């Protein structure tokens, strides 16, 4: 079976090569741990954020510092940091996401005596109220002061162009996601995922250009694949994406922490104060397991995604030991079961390759979806 990518390949820069090139050009690169952070602010400070979600390779050194029951994202993040990559020149940013990442940031800074600067950024968890907004605005400005050599925050004029660029990226991404939702995007699951993950390491202008090129892959006719929704922290391994491609299953939308949970459902336009734009953008993000959103809100959001995309099932890809996802999961699955809507949960430790067991489970899930589609 020929993959759709053979029709019009999309060139997505390799993460390692790209970062090496940029480092060689003197770009300041900051390692950013998951998940939510004000990317526009880093850009405006002349920093390229290189996100650290699941760096490949064996976990060796980190095991001496972390318990066996700590999730792969945290372990791989620490392993990467301990290797003291020369690419990371501007230190590390630890946005507040969960207990494990919270402590990891402090561990690296306070106990492991990192030679590189360590920054933290607290994402407020409380509901959007004037107090929360004020706090978030102050936190943004505080981070800006920390990043500035003279401890002054950026002026609106310095920040606005990057907010505008960010908004254009959001807009382009939303158009591509809409095409994907309608299954009008001629990209394989694997390529589409790589395209989406390019945001984790590309300079905004390169990311914008890549998304612009990807628009050429929007086709006028709907593909014939069976649409599904993907939820969790990260997308599954390539073998699973390939399997879905080969079986004509199309991931038409995602509810991934590394993906769409970081983008407002409807892109905002920066008007007026750029700080307020960044704050508005944060508070309009979709419901997330790591935040205080109710489970009812999450269910409603997933239902909306399903309704928008005509998805026929949900694939949950959950990182082992990830508490926020594991707590939410049962209620989400219960809801879908009551509606007779198929779901499958995969658990991963972020291994390079998928287990045979997971592949078999996905195969069975696909068979079931196909049978349902026929009946």
């Amino acid at each position, binding site marked *: 079976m020929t993959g759709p990518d053979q029709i019009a390949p999309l060139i997505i820069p390799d993460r390692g090569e790209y970062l090496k090139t940029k480092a060689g050009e003197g770009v300041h690169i900051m390692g950013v741990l998951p998940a939510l952070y004000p990317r526009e602010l880093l850009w405006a400070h002349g920093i390229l954020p290189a996100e650290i979600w699941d760096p490949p390779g064996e976990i060796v050194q980190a095991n001496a510092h972390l318990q066996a029951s700590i999730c792969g994202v945290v372990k791989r993040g620490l392993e990467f940091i301990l290797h003291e990559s020369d690419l990371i020149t501007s230190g590390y940013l630890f946005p507040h996401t969960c*207990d494990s990442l919270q402590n990891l*940031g402090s561990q690296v800074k306070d106990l492991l005596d990192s030679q590189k600067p360590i920054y933290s950024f607290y994402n407020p968890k409380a509901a959007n109220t004037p107090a929360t907004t004020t706090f978030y605005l102050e936190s943004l400005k505080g981070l800006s002061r920390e990043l500035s050599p003279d401890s002054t925050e950026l002026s609106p004029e310095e920040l606005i162009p990057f907010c505008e660029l960010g908004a254009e990226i959001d807009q382009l991404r939303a158009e591509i996601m809409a095409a994907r939702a309608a299954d009008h995007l001629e990209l394989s699951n694997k390529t589409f995922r790589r395209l989406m993950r390019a945001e984790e390491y590309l300079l905004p202008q390169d990311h914008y250009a890549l998304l612009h090129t990807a628009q050429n892959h929007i086709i006028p006719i709907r593909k014939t694949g069976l649409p599904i929704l993907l939820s969790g922290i990260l997308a599954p391994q390539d073998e699973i994406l390939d399997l879905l491609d080969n079986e004509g299953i199309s991931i038409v939308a995602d509810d991934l922490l590394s993906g769409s949970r970081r983008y407002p459902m409807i892109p905002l336009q920066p008007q007026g104060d750029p700080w307020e734009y960044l704050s508005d953008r944060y508070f309009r993000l979709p419901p997330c397991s790591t935040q205080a959103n109710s489970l009812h809100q999450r269910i409603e959001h997933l239902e909306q995604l399903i309704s928008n995309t005509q998805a026929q099932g949900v694939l949950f890809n959950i990182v082992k030991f990830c508490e926020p996802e594991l707590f939410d999961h049962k209620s989400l699955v219960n809801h879908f079961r009551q509606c007779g809507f198929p779901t499958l949960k995969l658990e991963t430790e972020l291994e390079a390759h998928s287990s045979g067991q997971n592949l078999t489970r996905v195969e069975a899930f696909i068979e079931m979806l196909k049978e349902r589609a026929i009946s």
Partner: protein
Amino acid sequence: MSLAGNLKYLFMKDLGTPALLGLQNIKKRSSRPPDQSFGPALKSNQRLKAILSKHYLLARYTPGAKKVAWVTSGAPVELLRAFDIYTIYPENHSALVGAKKLGAAYCSIAEGAGFSQDLCSYARIDLGHLFSGKTPAGKLPKPDLLFCSNNICQTVLYWYKVIAHELSIPLIHFDTPFVAQEQTEHDIQYMAQQLQDMIPVLEQITGKAFNLKSFETILKRSQTSSQTWGKILESMKSRPAPMTIFDAFGHLAPIVSLRGLPVAEHYYDVLLKEVLTRVDQGVGAISDERYRLIWDNIAVWYQVRHLATFFARRKMNFVTATYTNAWAETTGYLDVKDPWTSMAKTYGQIILNNNLKHRQQLMQRMIQDFDVDGMVMHSTRSCKPYSIGQYDLRKILSTELAIPAVIIDADIADERIWSGEQIQTRLEAFCESVEDRSYAH
């Protein structure tokens, strides 16, 4: 709230529960003979048992009389007390279940309902209780609202979201920015404003108006109780220490779950008097205290007696712990004249919401102040904020202070995680190191 419900509650509070508990005491007078390694038991143990039993028993009579909240251990409960809300602490209840070695059974109920075994066992036990109604406390009232703060962990937020969803009840969340370096003015303002924003919500839920005077009285009581608790813990600097940290694990229940109430304030006055008398008389918690240890992390509830005996027989006493200290450490920030910002400082800076440099320095002080010879760290699967960093803390502290240290991997309340032989071997080797070090000195 109904008149009949109120009358029934008041009757049970003042007459019914004391009578019922008195009858129970008559039935349960026999207890196992004391191990010779221990000194005389604290007299306050019986009082503590009575207070907690009454609290759980009385909870059954709240329907129609009081609103009930399920609350996390680090939440600023004083605000709820100002609205006369009856509070139940699921963490305390889970610890009770764990101590009775029922943790695995309750966890299994939650796991059977679809919750992962990798989740916090306090949460799984609580969900197991929620789905089955089972409890060693007889019966617990269902909550009318939930009140949580992520100052102890983010887990409580995820866990309480599930309960809120299951029971369709409101969840009030107090968001406490993690102290990565030091608390900022905007951290404090954010928390202080959240607390004030909760007032109209609580007024609506309870139908009662907020009374600042009454709130200040509660806050003052809370502060006094925490300070007394701190003095009780300080008494363990004496040689021999008048109690062990395993005693303290039990005696901290009122400061966690009855904080702000007169009963807790009075109880700690009595306990302080007792431990100070023991100090004056040279009465130790173990019969021959030769070595002094520090405990890090939450108790292994289902092994408290075993561990206490294991160490007492080796003449080792745990005289301090980061866990018990948590309810005394930040009390100094409380100020009745400035309730909101002072509560933000108090609740926002507790050990688990503070950075690991703070923890390292705190433990250093405790080791020195309590003249500690060795450190036992419980790395628990259930508590990531307490456990991540322990491997490095152990290395740093044992090197800098030249004391032996051991980490045991276990769990707070799920007894399936306990690897008895492996832990025994590790602890025996640790005890030898403590003895060797002492001999060398």
